[in-house]
Structure formats: C-alpha cells, structure tokens
C-alpha cells in the first residue's frame, strides 16, 4: 500500500495513523490555497535564511568601510551600503536572525503561558476561573505598544527587555481561547470517563485538554506573529530594541531616515523585509485558520 493510500485510508488501524492522515489532509488543503502557500514559503525562507546566515556568503554585517558609504544597489552590494559603508543585504540577512529570535521566544512564552492559564481557569471553574479571567481581562484591556514602551523605558533598551515587554501584553487572548475550548469539552463524556478512571487533574489537563486547544493556539500564534514583528520593529525604530551595531530591522529603518531623500534604499530595504515577513505570517495564519477551523469565514 502506498504511503498516500495509507494516510488516506478510511479505516485507520491506529491513532497515529489517524492523526497523520488528518495532518496530511490539512497540509494538502493548506498548500492548495495559493495565498497560504505563499505565506508558508515566506516563513520557511525566513527560518532558512536565519539559520544559515553565517554560512551565506553575503558579507560581514558589521564591517564598516567609510569609503563605501551610501552606495546604491549594485552587483557588488545588492541592497547598497549604509551610512557607515556596511553592506545592507548582509545586515538584512543578519537581522532575520534577530527577528526570528524575537518571534520564537515570544511564541514560546505566550503560547504555553496562555494555554496554562486558560485551561486551568476553564477546567476548575469557580473562583479560580473568576480570578484568572479578571486578571486576563485586565491585561487584555491594556494598549500593547504603549505598555511595551513603558516597560522597556523602565528596564532599559535591549532585545531581551523588548521580548519580555511584548510577551507580557500578548498572552491574554491565548488564555481566553484556551479557556473557551476547555469549557466546551469539560463536561463531555470522555473527560468524565477519564476522571472516573482516577486520573489526576494535572494529567487530564496536560494529556487530554491541552492537546485539544493546541491547534487554536497555533493559529492564533501565527496570526499574532505578524503583530509581534511590527511591535518589535516599532520599538527598534524608537531605539528601544536591539542596540547598535545590531542590524535590527526597525533600527535600520530609523537610521535610514536621515538619507531618505537621496539614498532611499537604506530605509526601504529593511522596511520591505519587515513587510514581507509580516505578510508571510499573516497569509500563513489565514491559511491555517481556513484549514483547521472551517467555521470561520
């Protein structure tokens, strides 16, 4: 039996086969959608470029050459050079690593955090739910960028503080989603069955409820990543993110402001990078939502 037939079989012999079969179908649906496919390709490209950055032969992002300042895009410097003679392409590539770091770290913090709070609140109900939801609502009502600004200004500029600041304001929607999902399955039969078997709450949460919420969280995370990139770039633009000479994209746009008139590439290239990556995550997130959550129009 071919692999494809095995995956699509009507009568899967094991849970693993069923799961893989479903994943295969979802993946196919995703790829069938051209916009989602484009998004996926962009995100994959980001990961690849970031991972392979040191190996790509694009030059040293930190090497200054004052005699080569502000050169327009050419065969030697595909994106031109900046005001200190550094090659912009290499800086954009290096900046991809920073961007990916921020995105991954934020996702790794807010996803599990929101998931934990939401499932606990939804499962236990009562006053635990009330307190956790109140806290969540309060954080949900805060303006993200402004709070991130205030945090970073208190803690000092830098990429770690930016990540913390963004994460602190980003987790509430995940708690909400997880809680909603938890509440729909909380009273279902199979949960009752497991409870009767004597499973502890922790095991139920960890082993049964959380996995059900994961797909919604993943969709939301992907959609939010675009926003995270924009906020991080915004902080970088204001000088609050990674510090020079780190080639953070937002900071590069800010530095390029001074040369906007005649040397537009210094600000435009990193700006395009931000835009394309953000777009990629948005497209991918939309595609994922269409595939994994068909209720949504």
């Amino acid at each position, binding site marked *: 039996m071919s692999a494809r037939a095995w995956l699509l079989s009507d009568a899967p012999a094991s849970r693993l086969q069923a799961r893989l079969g479903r994943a295969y179908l979802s993946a196919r649906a995703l790829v069938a959608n051209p916009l989602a496919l484009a998004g996926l390709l962009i995100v994959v490209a980001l990961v690849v470029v970031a991972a392979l950055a040191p190996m790509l032969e694009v030059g040293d992002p930190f090497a200054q050459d004052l005699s080569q300042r502000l050169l327009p895009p050419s065969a030697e410097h595909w994106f031109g050079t900046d005001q200190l003679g550094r090659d912009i392409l290499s800086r954009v590539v290096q900046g991809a690593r920073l961007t990916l770091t921020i995105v991954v770290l934020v996702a790794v913090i807010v996803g599990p955090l929101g998931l934990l709070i939401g499932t606990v609140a939804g499962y236990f109900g009562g006053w635990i739910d009330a307190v956790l939801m*109140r*806290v969540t*609502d*309060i*954080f*949900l*009502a*805060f*303006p*993200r*960028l*402004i*709070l991130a*600004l*205030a*945090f970073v*200004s*208190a*803690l*000092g500029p830098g990429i770690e503080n930016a990540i913390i600041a963004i994460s602190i304001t980003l987790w509430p929607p995940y708690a909400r989603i997880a809680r909603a999902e938890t509440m729909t399955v909380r009273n279902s039969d199979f949960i009752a069955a497991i409870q009767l078997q004597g499973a502890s709450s922790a095991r139920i949460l960890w082993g049964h409820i959380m996995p059900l919420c994961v797909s919604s969280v993943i969709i939301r995370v992907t959609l939010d990543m*675009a*926003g995270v990139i*924009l906020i991080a*770039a*915004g902080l970088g*633009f*204001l*000088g*609050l993110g990674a510090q020079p000479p780190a080639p953070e994209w*937002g900071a590069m*746009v*800010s530095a390029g*402001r001074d040369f*906007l*008139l005649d040397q*537009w590439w210094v*600000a*435009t290239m990193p*700006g395009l990078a*931000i*835009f394309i990556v*953000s*777009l990629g995550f*948005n*497209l991918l997130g*939309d595609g994922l939502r269409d595939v994994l959550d068909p209720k949504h*129009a």
Partner: protein
Amino acid sequence: MAEVLRGTGPGTARKAPSLARLSRRAGVLLGTLALTFLGLLFVTFVIGRVIPIDPVLAIVGDRALPEVYERVKLELGLDKPLTTQFVRYVAETATGNFGKSVLTGNPVLDDIRQFFPATLELATLATLLGVALGVPAGVLAAVHKGRWPDHVIRVVSLIGYSVPVFWLGLVGLLVFYARLDWVAGPGRIDIVYEYSIEQSTGLMLVDTALSGNWDAFRDAFAHIILPASILGYYSLAYIARMTRSFMLEQLAQEYVTTARVKGLGEGRVVWRHALGNVMVPLITVVALSYAYLLEGAVLTETVFAWPGLGLYITNSLFNADMTAVLGGTVVVGVCFIGLNLLSDLLYAVFDPRTR
C-alpha cells in the same frame, strides 16, 4: 417607510432586554472597569518602581544638599511601605495628579492636556477615513465574494496588517511631500498661521475653521491629511475586513433570499437592510479601531513630528522622565480601556446572546 428587514445575528434582537438585566449588566461592567483601571495603575506603579533611576535625584538634581534630598524624599512619601505608596498613587492619579514632569517642571497633566488634542484630532480623522472607505469596501468584498473586487480588497487589507506604520509614513513623506509636493510637511500648521490662530479647542482643523481663516484651514488640512491617511489605512484594513465578515454572515441569511425573491432591488437589500443590521457590531469595531489608532499614533507622530501624546511619551522616555511616561501611559490606557468597555457595552446591550 424605512422599515428595516430583520434577520438573525448580531444587532437583531427582537425586543430590548429588560431594564433590570441591563442595569445588572451595567453594574458588572462598571465593576470590571474599576478593577481594570486599578490593574493598569498597578502595572504602571510597578514599572515606576522598577526603574534604576532615583526619582528624588531626578527632581532635585545631583548637586542638591542632603537636607533637600531628605525633604523631597519625605514629600514624595518614598519612606513609607510600598502598599501605602500604591494607595497614595491611586488616590493621586484618580484626582488627576500625575506628578511633575522632571524636564519642564510642569504638572504632567497640564503637559498632557496640551498634547492630547493633537493625537485626538489625528485619530479621529483617521477613523473617519477608515470608516468612510472601509465600510463600503467591506460591503463590496462581501457582495462580490470570490471575484476580483473581493481579492483586491482582501489584499489591500492584508497589506494593512503587515506593513510597519513608521515605514509607510516615511515613504509617504518621501513621495507625497518631498517629491510630489501634494501635501505639507511635518508639523500641524505653517508658521505663518501658527501664532495668529486662537487655540480654543486644541484641534487645529476646528480652531482654524472657527477663526474663519480659510487659508489657515486648508493649510492645517494639508498638514494632517498625510498622517491621517496613513493611520486611516490601518483603520480601513481592519474595518473592511470585519465589515466583510459581518456582511457575509448577513447575506447568507434567509431574509435576504426572501427579499430578493420578492423583487427588492439589490442595492436596497445590501445597503439598507443587510448593512443596517450590522451597524451595531460595526460600531463596536470602530470603537476598537479608534483605540488601536491611539496606540499607532505613537509611531506616526514620531515620523511626522506631530506634537501629540505619542511624541510626548517618546520624548519623555528619552529624557528618562518616567513620571511623564507613566502619566501618558495611564491616559492612553484609560482611553483604550474605556473604548474597549464601550465596545463591550454596546455589544451586550444589543445582543443578549453574548453572555
């Protein structure tokens, strides 16, 4: 005979909820509001204490004598336990005392009052643009779902979610101010008019109109149109997307098919009846959009040197004037929370299903 056909879905409750229910709902929401404000203040209080800058030194300067230092420290209540300090902070903020700006020496509230109208004006105009263009765009996308208007509008929307506002602002300045000369440059109004217009409301468009000086009005407009359009684009993206979503739900309903069968013109079905039914949830969307714009204004104001609250906060930040930064944060936070709450309230009033 302006009867609007009713279907199901948000905003189409058959009868108004009872007064008792409403007031209880309002009570709960007000309670939530108070708690949320408290939470916001707690967060800003914590931020204010986390900073490594000595708040006393920030006020008295590094050359002050020890007695002056101690006196100011006592005045600020920094010798008391943290909980007492927090209570004091809440009390002061609630009465409008946000402290004194380290830089200008003025009360922060006065400074904010000076800068806030600029942001208000910008966000309002941007929202108006967003609504004026976004709602029709969303309707069109829904009506022509799957065909090219839908695709175009979806792409435009998507770009709005992905492009960094500060970059778009810079590009806008480059193209429309530097190269094409279609709009005026950074700042709210040209020098010529700045000192001859009476600033009664702080809203430049209103003040120039009130003064009757139409050249000044056009100048103020030429200054605001670019930043407002940039911000408006984001508003448009969000509103168009939500409108499309709501309209798709409406157009799938039975009453629409019935109306068409009965012979009602497509225009009326779509624009008067379907759209009429989504008005209320749309208002909540607009309120939320306004809230997000207040935030986005921070970056736009930096690019356009627009003297609003966002620029005030960032400048204070670079001057390590934490009192001002936190004061500004509280103000934006309050507006944000207020608008969110308004959104929730309207939704609750008109749709008893959302419990």
